[in-house]
Structure formats: structure tokens, C-alpha cells
């Protein structure tokens, strides 16, 4: 007789049925879906046995949609309706899309995210991504649910660790649009660490070096007794295998002395370059031969050595972010126990070699770099769906990749939550009014490492109204940032003396481009010195304006406390200060402020006396 099942206390009621959940790697070039079956994470294949689904969506005139290999085959014939690398457009406005002019798409610059006009109507990147997710969902339901019965409980979708708030939100929206219950957004290198760590019972400090088709992430994790703790993450979100193809393509064009190419020929040679790059991973030379539409023939041979030399600068670009991550984690190279390689581009021998030299040890390659992210996501999805099995009692602690802040007077970004903070995290900061009687405050939320707001990514703006009129600096506005376990931000503001409240879930109208993130980070180091000066200048300007306003108000109120000469002298200094505000050296403004300070010293003293007398007079009246 079969034994009856009883669920563990605290678990789902009734006889425990395994809740089906999947992990999805939504990649720039390829996407995958994986699930835990009989306690083991496996990638789910399509009918033809393919694990990888090319991330390509083609819209047809009759309203139909082709996704994957079918769309890929028609890519060159129908470029305007065949969307490739849609991940680059997620959460972004048109002005953030680099090389939009070279792209075959008919972009629509609508407020919010960029949209693409196709034969089947206007499509947003979220909708395009949702088409890819729908195919993976169908694949999962067919292979899992079909056999076991029941329905898909949910999915974990991975994102580059460097994705900002807008890009994360867009990814989550795409999941919802595809009819998935998104259990969690998971950072790609972290997903890889889970798969590797559990597979190898790893303990200690590990680095995950993830060079994919379009992005580079480096994460440093501490693995101890089933806890995966991300200590720091960094990256270059505009660097991936595609750049290596592009470099080789340019070399071929130069070597074969080709005239400017049509977009079809460009596509053809790029594909050949990619194939040659892959061939060179295991061979010493590769041949690229093709007959172009222009009837020109190309026949060149590239050696592994030549390829490695021309792309060495690309490999070197991963060094800086790697060092920064290690420094942010406050670690030395010798403390890193292993380096896990993720992403197809890490197969290239010179990438392997550079990582080995950098860390002083051979990198770990015992997992398929194309599949490890999806496998890790599947393992987490299984646990999140509530399927506790022995050995699943692990804990994941991840971080946010970029600092979050708020704009203050003078266009300065005040950091509220620093990068690499463990999530979920909340931080409150108090701000005050700048002018007497100010009743509203505009709150501008930004993301990035630079000191000036104009160099950071704008996430959202909202207003707190109804602040009771008070003198400048008296109001207490408490702004609270909350980042949840998906790395998504919400912001609220509250005036504490009266309780006036305003809250917003930050759903930014557009996100940062990978290139922008990279550029922002790069700039913040390139221009660290400029920043210090620019910041000092703005601070002094704000201070100078404040000084002018306050002194003029005092003069209007208590002019009788000064002799004509004193008053004239003070006004001369005020005029001088007003002129210095336009200059670009903060020291000049500072000295102008100091001169006004000196000139108004006696005035301030007399004003103080007068107000004390007034206060005392008031008390006398009261005590009567």
C-alpha cells in the first residue's frame, strides 16, 4: 500500500505537490530556460534538441510572430521587422540608444521607452522581450507541466549585474507580459556562482568573470556554509563578444581593401568573422572567404596570433573593473580562491590567459559558460517556489551595482545608498528648504557614481507639496529610499514637522544605456579632479547666493542699525560678491563671501542684540 504524504509544518498546505518553476537567461544574443528535475538542474531543449533560442523576433504582416531560428534565417531579408539584440533597448529612450541612425529599425521617440514601428504595429522593447519569454514559457510548460500536470508556479529571470533600475523594471514587466509570475530578478554572475558553488561544494572567496555577447560583469562572492554573499560587483556594460567580431570584421575589410559595404554584405562578413573567431579558439588559423553582392570576392586568412593581438585591448578593458571590484571588496588577489568563467566569450584562449595572469591561478571552466546562468536561475527558482529539499537550505545576499542619490542645490548628487550595498536596503536622509516660505520641494532621484547630477542617470522626479511656510532651513524633509530584493527602488518623502507625505515607486520613463553606465563610471574616474573643482564651484555659488539673499533681507529689516558709510561699505561688498558668482574659480567666490562676512560682522552683532532685546521684552509681557 502506498504511504500517504504529509507536508512539513509551515509548507504549502495539503499533500505537497512539487511546484514547477523555471530559470530564464534572457540574453542579448541567445536565451535559455532551465528547471530542476529530480533534484538536478537541466536546460530544457526545443523539439530539435536546441538549448539556445536566438534572441531574435520577427513581426509578420498577418500579425504573426516568429521567434528564434526562424526569425534569424530571415534577418537579412526583412531587417526592419526582425528585431535582434532587443536587450540593448530595454528601459531606454531613443536618445540613449547608440548608433540608432545605423540601425535598420523605424524608431519612435515616444516619452518613456523607445518604440519600434513594424508591419504588425508599434512594439516596445518590453513587448519584443515578452515574445522571447513566451516561447521559453511554452517550452517549459510542454516539457514539465505536460508530464507532471499542474501549472508553472513562476520564473526567475536573470539580468546583467550592471542593469540599472529602469532596465530591471523593464525586464520584470516583460516577464509579466509573457504571463510569467516573476519570482525574482537575479544577477547573472550571481546565478553562475550558485550553480558552480552548489555543484562543487565551494567555500571561500570566488570571483565570477562573465563576458557575454554584449556585457561584462565581474562579481566577488564569499561562499560559506551555504551562504552566497556578493561582496562587490563591477563591469563594463558595453563590452562583449560582439566587439571581438566587429574588430575582426574591420580587419578583414581593411585587409581585403573593400569599398564601403551594403548592410547585407556587412551582415554576411560579420557572421563569417564570428565563425572565424570561434574557430580560432581551437585552431591556429582561420579562413574567411565570401562572394559579396557587389561581386567582389573576399579570401583572407587570419592567424590566432593576429586575432589575439588585434583584440588584446578589448581583453585589457576588463582589468580596470576587476581591480575596482576587488578593492571595493577590500581584498587582495591572493585571497581569491577561484575564478569562475561565464559567457561564451570566455572561451577565447587569450581571455583565459589574461585572467590566469591577473589572478595568479588557472580559471575554473568545468561548467558550460553558455548554460551556467540559466542553471543557477533554475536552482533559485526551485527554492523560491517553495520546494525545499535537503541541501537547498542556502541563502543568497546580493548588492546594488550603482549608487543611488538625490539632487541637491547647485546640481549636486547627494549619495543616499552607496554602490555594493546588500539588498534589501533602505536609507533615509533629511533635507531642508533653501528659501524662506518655500512650500514645495522637487525631488530628483539619480543613479551613478559622479558628483554632478548632470553626469548621473536620471531615474525619476516627483514633488512634495504643502510644506508649511517656514524660514529657509527650518523644514525637515525626510527622503527614504527602499531597494527591494529585485534591486528595484521606491522613494518616499515626508515633512516631519507636519507629516506632509509624498511617495513614489520609481518607474523611470527610460533607463541608462550600457554605454552610458560604462561612460559614467569611466568619467567618474577620469574626471575625479574636475568633479572636485566643479563641486566646490557649485557649493560656493550656492553659498554666495544664500549670503546675498540673507544679507539683503537683513538690510531691508534692520537698515537703521547701520550708519550711511557702513551701509554703503556693505553694499559695495555685496555687489562685488554678486559679480564673482559668474566666475569659474571657487576661491574667488569664497573670498567674496568672506569679505561680505567681515563687512557685516558688526551689523550681525547689532541685529543679534536687537532680537535678544525683543525676546526679553516678550517674556516680560508674558510674565506679567
Amino acid at each position, binding site marked *: 500500500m502506498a504511504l500517504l504524504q504529509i507536508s512539513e509544518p509551515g509548507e*504549502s498546505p495539503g499533500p505537497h505537490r512539487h*511546484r514547477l518553476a523555471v530559470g530564464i537567461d534572457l540574453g542579448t544574443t541567445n536565451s535559455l530556460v532551465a528547471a530542476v528535475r529530480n533534484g538536478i538542474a537541466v536546460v530544457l531543449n526545443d523539439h530539435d534538441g536546441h538549448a539556445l533560442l536566438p534572441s531574435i523576433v520577427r513581426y509578420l504582416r498577418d500579425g504573426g510572430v516568429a521567434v528564434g531560428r526562424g526569425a534569424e534565417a530571415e534577418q537579412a531579408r526583412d531587417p526592419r521587422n526582425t528585431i535582434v539584440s532587443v536587450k540593448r533597448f530595454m528601459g531606454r529612450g531613443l536618445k540613449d540608444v547608440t548608433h540608432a541612425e545605423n540601425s535598420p529599425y523605424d524608431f519612435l521617440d515616444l516619452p518613456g521607452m523607445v518604440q519600434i514601428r513594424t508591419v504588425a504595429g508599434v512594439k516596445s522593447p518590453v513587448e519584443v522581450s515578452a515574445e522571447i519569454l513566451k516561447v521559453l514559457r511554452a517550452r517549459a510548460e510542454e516539457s514539465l507541466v505536460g508530464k507532471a500536470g499542474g501549472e508553472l*508556479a*513562476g520564473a526567475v529571470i536573470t539580468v546583467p549585474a550592471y542593469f540599472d533600475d529602469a532596465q530591471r523594471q523593464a525586464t520584470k514587466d516583460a516577464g509579466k507580459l509573457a504571463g510569467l509570475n516573476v*519570482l*525574482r530578478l537575479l544577477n547573472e554572475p550571481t546565478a553562475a556562482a550558485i550553480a558552480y558553488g552548489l555543484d562543487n561544494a565551494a567555500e571561500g572567496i570566488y570571483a565570477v568573470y562573465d563576458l557575454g555577447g554584449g556585457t561584462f560583469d565581474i562579481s566577488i562572492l564569499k561562499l*560559506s*556554509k551555504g*551562504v552566497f554573499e556578493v561582496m562587490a560587483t563591477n563591469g563594463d556594460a558595453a563590452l562583449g563578444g560582439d566587439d571581438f567580431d566587429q574588430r575582426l570584421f574591420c580587419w578583414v575589410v581593411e585587409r581585403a581593401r573593400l569599398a564601403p559595404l551594403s548592410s547585407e554584405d556587412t551582415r554576411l562578413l560579420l557572421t563569417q568573422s564570428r565563425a572565424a573567431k570561434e574557430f580560432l579558439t581551437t585552431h591556429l588559423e582561420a579562413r574567411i572567404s565570401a562572394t559579396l553582392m557587389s561581386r567582389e570576392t573576399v579570401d583572407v586568412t587570419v592567424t590566432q596570433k593576429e586575432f589575439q593581438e588585434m583584440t588584446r585591448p578589448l581583453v585589457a578593458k576588463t*582589468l*580596470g573593473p576587476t*581591480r*575596482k571590484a576587488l*578593492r571595493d571588496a577590500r581584498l587582495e588577489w591572493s585571497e581569491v580562491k577561484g575564478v569562475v568563467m561565464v559567457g561564451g566569450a570566455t572561451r577565447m584562449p587569450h581571455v583565459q590567459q589574461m585572467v590566469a595572469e591577473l589572478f595568479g591561478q588557472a580559471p575554473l571552466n568545468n561548467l558550460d559558460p553558455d548554460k551556467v546562468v540559466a542553471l543557477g536561475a533554475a536552482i*533559485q527558482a526551485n*527554492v*523560491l*517556489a*517553495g520546494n525545499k529539499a535537503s541541501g537547498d*537550505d542556502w*541563502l*543568497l*545576499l546580493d548588492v546594488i551595482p550603482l549608487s543611488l542619490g538625490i539632487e541637491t542645490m547647485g546640481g549636486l548628487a547627494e549619495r543616499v545608498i552607496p554602490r555594493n*550595498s*546588500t*539588498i*534589501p*536596503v*533602505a536609507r533615509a536622509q533629511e533635507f531642508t528648504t533653501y528659501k524662506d516660505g518655500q512650500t514645495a520641494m522637487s525631488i530628483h532621484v539619480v543613479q551613478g557614481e559622479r558628483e554632478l547630477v548632470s553626469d548621473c542617470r536620471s531615474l525619476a522626479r516627483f514633488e512634495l507639496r504643502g510644506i508649511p511656510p517656514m524660514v529657509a532651513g527650518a523644514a525637515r524633509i525626510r527622503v527614504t529610499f*527602499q531597494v*527591494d*530584493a529585485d534591486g528595484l527602488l521606491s522613494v518616499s518623502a515626508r515633512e516631519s514637522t507636519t507629516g506632509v507625505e509624498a511617495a513614489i515607486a520609481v518607474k523611470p520613463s527610460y533607463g541608462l544605456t550600457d554605454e552610458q553606465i560604462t561612460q559614467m563610471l*569611466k568619467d567618474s*574616474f*577620469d574626471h*575625479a*579632479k574636475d568633479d572636485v573643482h566643479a563641486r566646490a564651484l557649485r557649493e560656493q555659488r550656492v553659498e554666495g547666493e544664500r549670503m546675498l539673499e540673507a544679507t539683503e533681507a537683513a538690510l531691508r529689516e534692520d537698515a537703521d542699525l547701520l550708519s550711511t558709510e557702513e551701509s554703503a561699505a556693505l553694499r559695495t561688498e555685496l555687489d562685488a560678491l554678486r559679480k564673482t558668482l559668474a566666475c569659474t574659480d571657487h576661491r574667488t567666490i569664497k573670498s567674496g563671501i568672506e569679505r561680505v562676512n567681515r563687512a557685516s560682522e558688526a551689523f550681525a552683532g547689532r541685529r543679534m542684540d536687537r532680537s535678544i532685546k525683543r525676546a526679553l521684552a516678550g517674556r516680560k509681557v508674558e510674565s506679567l
Partner: protein
Amino acid sequence: MNLNQNHFELFDLPARFAVDAAALEARYHELQREVHPDRFAAAPDPERRASMQLATRVNEAYQTLKSPLRRAVYILQLRGVDPEFETRTSMPPQFLIEQMGWRERIEAGSENPEALLRLRAGLRDESRKIYEKLQAQLDEGRDDGAASETTRVLMFYEKLDDEIDDKLAELET
């Protein structure tokens, strides 16, 4: 978990500056295993919200207790002492001269990563000694006034450390 507990109570540790790092981390992991949102991903909304709040609280407490500087400030605040970091910036002239010396050396070494790393090592040695003094002031002497002063000194050291870090980052790009 009681939200009215202070960070030390939450982590079941004595409210002292000297802290058992291993115990702190172990307790942190223990608490997160209980409250982390990953444990409640399939739970109803109110539970998920509560889990996020509690996990946020645990993270905040851990980060505060883990950093010696934040821990010192927190202990002083628990004792009702406001270290007045924002307003009281007057420091002994001798100290300010030393700070200027550090700054000059950082500036002079800003093209040379080796020199910067040596400076950072020296700076961290120096601040380690000051932290020992702080520990005596907070845990043994119970001299909160002196501890406030020492804490302010350490904030300057932290700033210098950040500056060296920025310089190193600058050299890499």
C-alpha cells in the same frame, strides 16, 4: 524579532566596541535565513512586505556593527552622546598639520600606484592604533567625550583612505 531592539540586542551581542566578528557574521546569516525575501517569494503580499522590512533592518544593523567607525558612532548615540560630526569641525592644530602632511603625500604619489598602496598600508596601520585607543575609551575608560574626539579623528582617516582609493581608480582608466 523585535523591531524595538537596538542593533546589539538584535544580534545578541554585548553593546561594546570590541566585537566578535565571527559571531556577528554567524548571527547575521542566521537572522537572514529567517527573514530574507527569498524565503517568502511565494508568500502573500503582507508577508512579503514584512520580510522585506525585516531583512532591510537586519542589513542595516549588520552594516552598522561591522564597520568600526559606524559602530563607534552608534555606541555613542546609544549612550546619548551626539558626536556632532556635522557641526563641530574644530580639531587640534597638530592633528590638522598631520592631515595636511598625509594629503601632500597622497598628492605627490598620485601618479604611482606602488606609492599609493604603501601610503594606504601606512594609513591603515595608523588608524588601527587609533581604533585600539578608541576601544579603550569606549569599553574600559568609558570616556565618551574623548571617544567622540577619537571618532572624529578616524573620520578624517576614512576620508584619506577614500581619496587614495579614488587616486588608484583614476590611474586605471
